[in-house]
């Protein structure tokens, strides 16, 4: 076993050394795909929180922070340095003095303040408002009581002081593409909606709605020598089968794979060489409404977790394109406890727990689900006979994703199955189970546990990172024990890429969203 480990490690080191030895090639075209629908919302990323729109936005725009996929954390991007006050509430950002917008104008503190203030326009509904609300005075602007965010101050052209309302790490909020920094003057013009100007590595060239977006290398991009590629085309391709043909035909450089394609690509000797896999920060769960009498009993919730053979479903239906969930926090979370064990498949134990809870003959519930192949009706159909074995009957209520989101927020359900964001910030993510969090925000199961609340409150208040992580791990363990949900799986995102495309990053927050400046195209690419 040890020998095998040593050989594997040596091999991995050799391979990674080989990877580092590769010299990025300049030039060429990146042919990316946007796989989550047949269009982009528009060309104003401030109005969209969708991954589909972030895919194009990362080419054109930049935020104060960016997600470093290899370090698995947000790092400064448009600022060179940040100083934090002793009380952890005041952040002073020294902005880059080499960041130029695509019209050639240098970025200043005014642009940062304007872009963040815009999010709080009370007459509009910018999804990024929830992230800016951590800045002192942002809520007053949102309510129309002030025109400027009092917690945002321009010290000089390249220095911004940001005062927060509570001690939180703002990097998790400010790396979001929907908080991209716009040029204050130009962004107010009508033409901006059709010809976006940003600070990103590529400059906007053309957008054919519903088809593609094309951008070319921005010569004044602040990272020396980057971007490597001359051009990027992002094709909108919502249909997986069409992406498959186009990828095999070498018309596109990347494709996000579903379970069926994952199996086919893994089995192919050539295609299997270009698979990038990452444990994304999404947890697939069955939410159990605590207002529905049987689910108010912990023993019943535990029985559900014992009664379902999740491993079998992951293997047979999800085709191993997922990792078994143990609790809420995903594998890529810094507070994930790798020693935590999932609930074993034990129908007898489930029956015993149901009998103890007063349901020896089981009960019936309605399960709201969409048609999603990885966390929808196909999964529910596989679970039904397992639950029937312990006397629990299920009635499926099929809905669309839009309706599911409404149902979960309103509590108008008995159980739902969904894929929910469980990162990257473990504290923010776990707060969804804090009793102070309303159902309409993200406490969908109305979870309430004083011990859990205490751990989260302490984690939020402490400066001791080790203690914070410890608390979060304990809170996650409480969720495992209390099971407000059936912990199904963590998504394994898989991206197929052509052999000539290098520098892709294993982004756990969303694999399809890449920092394009780090990607390069080898000469073997058929693209001109």
């Amino acid at each position, binding site marked *: 076993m040890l020998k095998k480990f040593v050989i594997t490690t040596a091999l991995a080191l050799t391979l990674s050394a080989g990877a580092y030895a590769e010299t990025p090639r300049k030039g060429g075209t990146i042919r990316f795909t946007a796989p*989550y*629908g*047949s*269009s982009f*919302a*528009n060309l*104003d990323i401030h*109005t*969209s*929180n*969708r*991954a589909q729109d972030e895919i194009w936005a990362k080419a054109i725009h930049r935020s104060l922070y960016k997600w470093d996929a290899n370090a698995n954390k947000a790092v400064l991007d448009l600022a060179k340095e940040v100083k934090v006050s002793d009380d952890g509430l005041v952040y002073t950002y020294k902005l880059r003095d080499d960041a130029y917008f695509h019209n050639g104008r240098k970025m200043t503190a005014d642009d940062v303040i304007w872009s963040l203030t815009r999010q709080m326009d*009370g*007459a*509009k*509904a*910018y*999804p990024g*408002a*929830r992230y800016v609300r951590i800045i002192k005075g942002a809520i007053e602007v*949102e309510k129309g009581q002030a025109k400027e965010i009092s917690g945002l101050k321009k010290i000089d052209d390249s220095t911004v002081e940001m005062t927060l309302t509570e001690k939180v790490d703002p990097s998790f909020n400010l790396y979001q593409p929907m908080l991209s920094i716009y040029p204050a003057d130009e962004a107010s013009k009508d033409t901006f*909606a059709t010809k976006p100007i940003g600070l990103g590595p590529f400059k906007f060239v053309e957008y*054919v*709605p*519903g*088809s*593609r977006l094309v951008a070319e290398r921005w010569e004044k991009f602040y990272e020396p020598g980057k971007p490597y590629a001359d051009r990027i085309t992002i*094709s*909108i*391709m*919502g*249909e997986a*089968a*069409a992406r498959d*043909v*186009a990828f*095999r*035909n070498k*018309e596109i450089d990347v494709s996000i794979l579903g379970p069926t394609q994952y199996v086919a690509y893994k089995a192919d000797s050539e295609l299997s060489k270009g698979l990038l896999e990452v444990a994304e920060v*999404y947890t697939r769960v069955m939410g159990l409404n605590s207002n529905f009498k049987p689910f108010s009993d912990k023993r019943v919730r535990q029985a559900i977790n014992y009664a379902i053979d999740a491993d079998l479903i992951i293997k047979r239906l999800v085709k191993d394109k997922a990792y078994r969930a143990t609790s809420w926090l995903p594998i890529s979370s810094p507070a994930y406890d790798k020693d935590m064990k999932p609930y074993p498949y034990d129908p007898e134990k489930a029956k015993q727990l149901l009998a103890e809870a007063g349901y020896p003959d089981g009960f019936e519930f309605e399960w709201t689900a969409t048609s999603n192949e990885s966390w929808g009706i196909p999964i529910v159909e596989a679970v039904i006979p397992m639950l029937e074995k312990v006397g629990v009957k299920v009635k499926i209520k099929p*809905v*669309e*994703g*839009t*309706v*599911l*989101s*409404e149902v979960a*927020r309103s509590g108008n359900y008995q159980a739902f199955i*969904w*894929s*929910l*964001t469980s990162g990257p910030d473990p504290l923010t993510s776990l707060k*969804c189970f804090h009793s102070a969090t*309303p159902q*309409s*925000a*993200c406490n969908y199961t109305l979870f309430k546990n004083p011990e859990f609340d205490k751990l989260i409150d302490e984690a939020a208040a402490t400066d001791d990172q080790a203690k914070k992580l410890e608390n979060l791990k304990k809170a996650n363990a409480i969720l495992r024990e209390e099971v407000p949900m059936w912990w199904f799986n963590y998504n394994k995102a898989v991206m197929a890429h052509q052999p000539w495309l290098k520098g892709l990053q294993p982004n756990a927050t*969303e694999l399809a969203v890449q920092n394009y400046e780090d990607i390069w195209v080898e000469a073997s690419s058929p693209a001109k």
Partner: protein
Amino acid sequence: MLSFIVRRLLQSLPIILAVAALIFVMFSVIPGTFASSMSDDGRSVLDAEVMARMNKEFGLDDPVYVRFGKYVSQLATFDLGTSFRTRQPVAHVIADRLWPTAQLAFASMLFAILIGVPLGFVAALRPGSWIDTISMIGAVSGLSLPKFWLGLLLMYLFALMLGWLPSFGYGGGDLRYLILPSIALGVAPLALLARTTRAAVLDIMNADFVRTARSKGMSESKVVRWHLTRNALVIILTTIGLQFGTVIGQAVVIEKLFSWPGLGSLLVDSVTLRDIPVVQGSILVIVLLFLLINMLVDVLCAIIDPRIKYT
């Protein structure tokens, strides 16, 4: 003729209004809003304040009758409203997608007409022959094939295996991109046109005036040209008109498959995301196109066959 056109346009008005009202009622009843669609993937949580503001910004928190009143008054001034998603006028959003859909619809109908009509004629002129049997088996198959499956098959064959054509995308002026989606969309109308043409020609071949023409010694080519073709054209044109509308409506599947940026894919996305003004606008435009094409067909039929009198 002019009075006929004016009358037809006026007759279309109640149809358009009824469709508009129907769409409004449907989307007022079904659950889900644009705001709830923004977190339908469970990825991004939209907080209650932003959702409420979104509903207010788009007037979704107004009572139904107020929204209907606004909608009707907008329509009366030819204003289709503003898209929730793009925050641009719906007319602009639709205009961007109309030309690709028109290209696809025209190309697929051209393909259907150029092959389907001659095939139907030949089959009818030689009933029971091998060409008749094969073409009618082909027509039935063409009508039965699911468009999605056929599109995928064409992709595999002509893009992946033979490498002749691109498998997806909108080439702008590059016609190579138009070929596969047009064939995939055009096969069903081709099959229907072949069958309809065959049936129409066979029917006319047995008519008294054709028998009289032949008995008077008119050559077969003249019979076909002057009597069969002219009389069958009325039925063929009517079928073409109806199929044009069907093709525009059915383009949804093909546009999504081939990443073709048309009205169909816009409509599907807008329904999923509850971008109601775009849904209403797109359906109205499709209905309008359908009515216009059929009016044009009626006019053409009257020109071809002077016996047709429109009152």
